[in-house]
């Protein structure tokens, strides 16, 4: 079978879409109050360091996924079970995205449609794209990157043109608030959404331009960080800290307020589409990561056989993981603080350190 290949722009587009994913639509970094945009930008340097670590590991083992080089670096006895533990984390996070998308779609628009229908359709789309393979997925990302950017520009333009922006809601940022922003940037925003890029360690083996990997990843990260920061600053400036912190879907609330000359209004569809695109790409990449790690660990040649089980697990756990949306959000805080940092930061840094030590003391046979 021919090895599937991904070009630099395709990787760039995938990273941006993955980063924007749900982070664009749900409120993030609530502890930082009105300085949330600042927190997003403050977390960027940390995010770049994480991405450079992923890039370094990839360059050392260009043909292996994260589970592959985990066994090489840590040894089979420690690497294999540790890699196995990553899989449920990825599956759960994929199902969280699905849950959020389903609940937001129902509360925002499809109030009479059962959640199982919405979630199933999304999962079917994800399974379909995984069947087609990562190359098709990358080409899809390329197209949707342009679509999402154009929609984002239109939305930002109409929100500004409608005169909704109140800069008073963003400034001034006083010294104490800088500290709060920093506290919410590290570690929360660093992990979600930047650290989640660890999923790309399973996609990078298909990347064709090995030398460009750091440049592409960092550029994509900076762009998505600026877009995220700008969008959240826009939402905050329109809604104010109080409504922003209480709303489940700040972007949707913002766009419903738009009314340009009694003519341009009700642009809700743009936001709904942004949500669907973002969740689709994010979930697909999580599922892909779970599939490829599992395939690698259990030596399954035909990865297609894993797509259906992964899809079903994600779909079911999106229902059973939490009773209701507030409980889901409460789980999310625990998950973000206690579990997600392990695959996103702890394991890569551990791998990096151990690998450097083994190189230094020539411990590789």
């Amino acid at each position, binding site marked *: 079978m021919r090895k599937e290949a991904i070009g630099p722009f395709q990787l760039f587009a995938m990273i941006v879409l993955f980063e924007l994913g749900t982070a664009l639509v749900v409120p993030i970094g609530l502890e930082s109050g009105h300085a949330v945009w600042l927190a997003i930008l403050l977390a960027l340097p940390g995010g770049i360091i994480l991405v450079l670590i992923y890039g370094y590991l990839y360059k050392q083992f260009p043909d292996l996924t994260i589970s592959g080089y985990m066994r090489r670096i840590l040894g089979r006895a420690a690497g294999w079970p540790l890699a196995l533990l990553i899989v449920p984390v990825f599956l759960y996070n994929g199902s969280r995205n699905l849950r959020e998308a389903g609940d937001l779609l129902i509360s925002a628009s499809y109030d009479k449609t059962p959640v199982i229908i919405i979630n199933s359709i999304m999962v*079917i789309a994800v399974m379909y794209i995984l069947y087609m393979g990562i190359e098709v997925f990358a080409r899809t990302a390329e197209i949707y990157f342009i679509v999402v950017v154009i929609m984002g520009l239109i939305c930002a333009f109409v929100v500004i043109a409608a005169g909704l922006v109140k800069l008073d809601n963003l400034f001034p940022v006083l010294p104490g608030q800088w500290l709060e922003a920093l506290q919410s940037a590290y570690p929360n925003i660093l992990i979600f959404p930047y650290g989640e890029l660890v999923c790309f360690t399973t996609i990078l083996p298909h990347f064709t331009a090995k030398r460009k990997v750091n440049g592409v990843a960092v550029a994509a990260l900076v762009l998505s960080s600026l877009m995220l920061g700008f969008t959240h600053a826009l939402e905050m400036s329109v809604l104010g800290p109080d409504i922003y912190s209480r709303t489940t879907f700040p972007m949707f609330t913002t766009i419903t307020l738009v009314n340009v000359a009694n003519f341009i209004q009700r642009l809700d569809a743009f936001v709904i589409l942004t949500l669907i695109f973002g969740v689709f790409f994010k979930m697909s990449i999580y599922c892909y990561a779970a599939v490829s790690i599992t395939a690698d660990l259990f030596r399954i040649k035909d990865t297609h056989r894993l797509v259906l089980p992964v899809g079903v697990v994600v779909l079911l756990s999106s229902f059973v993981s939490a009773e209701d949306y507030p409980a889901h959000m409460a789980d999310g805080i625990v998950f973000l603080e206690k579990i997600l940092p392990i695959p996103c930061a702890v394991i890569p840094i551990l791998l990096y350190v151990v690998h450097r030590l083994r190189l230094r003391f020539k411990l590789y046979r």
Partner: protein
Amino acid sequence: MSSRWIRLLAALLAMSTALTGCYNSRELNELAIVSGIGIDLVPGKQEYKVSFQIVNPNSTPTTVSPGSGLPAIIVISATDDTVFGALRKASKRATRQLFFAHAQMVAIGEPLARQGINHVFDIFERSHELRLNSAVLVARDTSAEALLKLLSPIESISTLGIVNKVRNTSNVWGENRTIDVFEIISEIAGVGEITVNGLRIPGDPEEGSKKSSLEQSGFKGGNIMSGLAVLKDGKLIGWMDGSEARGTQWVLNRINETSVNVDVPGSSAKAAVNIFHSRTNVKVKLIEEVPVFHVSIHEEGIVNEAGGFIDFSIKETRDQLEEELKARTIEEVRQAVERAQGMKSDIFNFGNELKRTHPQDWEKVKDRWDSVFAKGKLDLHVESYIRSTGMRTKTYTNPEQ
């Protein structure tokens, strides 16, 4: 093996598109489009009486049909403990399902406003169908239901007329401003008190809801904008009228255009100055536990009418007129601030400004802000400019001898 899966998947996909497309469908001919909502208090009970103004599509004239001749609006109401309950209870009365996405206006009856409106708006935030940019009004001395029932001559749907009126008078006269649900919620959640546009029925509400009231040129029905309701902790405690209302808008930097009558220097006549640009900057500082409100207003106007002889080619005359304009503005703003201080109601967002710029000072006074605000000092600076005198300089009359 794999092709079988693909076939199954294709079948599932095909089914999902065929089965799910119309889950949320609602046909236009099964909907009653609500143009305005009125919320009143049921006397003696803790219940809401919610009224809906519904558009009657058969009698709305279009290019292809002249309409049935019946009133274009119908008002129905229902009472319940919650607004949403009343919304749904109204189905017992209406022939179609109510559709709220085009509700332009929310009117609050004065008795309810006096009892408190803080909890009324939750449904507007929570629901995705109700809109946050519906205008909010208080029906002064009357019920919201009576307001919705009024027929209006030019706009067949009276709430659209009211919303246009609010926008129009805010733009050219300046005693009111467009206040929507979103602004009310932000202000309730923030520090300080709220002002809401008032709307009064000058004539007989009963007559105004009859179609015969429209069949005369000396139209006596309809409604009239009437001041700003001051709501403290969500409860109506007083009204700002006339120049007090305009002074309030001035402090809030919400004057777009307005007309000020100033005394003509050296005569008993008045001149009308149309303010076409006005900007207000507010800074609040706490000096020894007493807040100082630095308000600076920059306004530019055009002389649109002179009621007596004025020679605008003389610079001194123009300067004097600018001074008069400044004095009038200062007077109106002072009236507004003093009135608000008398009611111990910070309707100018001064508290929010202090909290935003000096959070530490705010912490010191936040528990007793009402009384601190009432003792605050106003430091008012007004710059007035007259940019033009219209198409003429001198008036056509001669100086009075």
